[in-house]
């Protein structure tokens, strides 16, 4: 899984039926210092994540299907948690 920040969302009328009534959010990857790193990507929300929140994202199809309660969806990237805190145990 990976950590990112919600920076936006996208609307689509014409979409695959597995995405009906789903929220698709734009997520910017974060490094362990909370700094933006790399290209933003789109993820399906499953936890009512909001703009600016730090989130936990799974990028694997079987997990996506399980979380969304769908059988074999064409979806692999899903927000599965809102991160309260990350502690990597680095000593000063």
């Amino acid at each position, binding site marked *: 899984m990976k950590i990112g920040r919600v*920076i936006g969302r*996208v*609307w*689509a009328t*014409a979409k*695959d039926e597995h995405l009906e009534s789903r929220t698709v959010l734009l997520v910017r990857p974060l490094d362990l210092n909370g700094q933006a790193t790399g*290209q933003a990507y789109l993820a399906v929300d499953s936890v009512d994540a909001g703009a600016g929140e730090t989130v936990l994202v799974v990028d694997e199809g079987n997990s996506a299907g399980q979380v969304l309660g769908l059988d074999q969806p*064409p*979806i692999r990237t899903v927000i599965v948690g809102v991160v309260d805190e990350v502690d990597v145990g680095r000593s000063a």
Partner: protein
Amino acid sequence: MHFARVIGTVWATQKDPTLKGIPLRVIQPVDETGAENGEPLVAADRVSTREGDRVYFVRAREAAKAFPGKFAPLDAAILGIVDGAQVDGEDA
């Protein structure tokens, strides 16, 4: 999933039988600002796109799941036509 722009169409008469009936588009991946982001690729079209459309697409095996029952050899599929997006609170 990622943003892309539809820039063309691929026609193939001789192909794997499971690909029959699946439109193939050439897409240019773009970032949230519309800037090109990587090399163009061929993606299966689930949502009847037209050239110039801004879309989002999924990579890897999940692409095939957009065409249930076909078990087609696909590694990219267009899942939605973007009506609008918002990034950092601004329309994008």
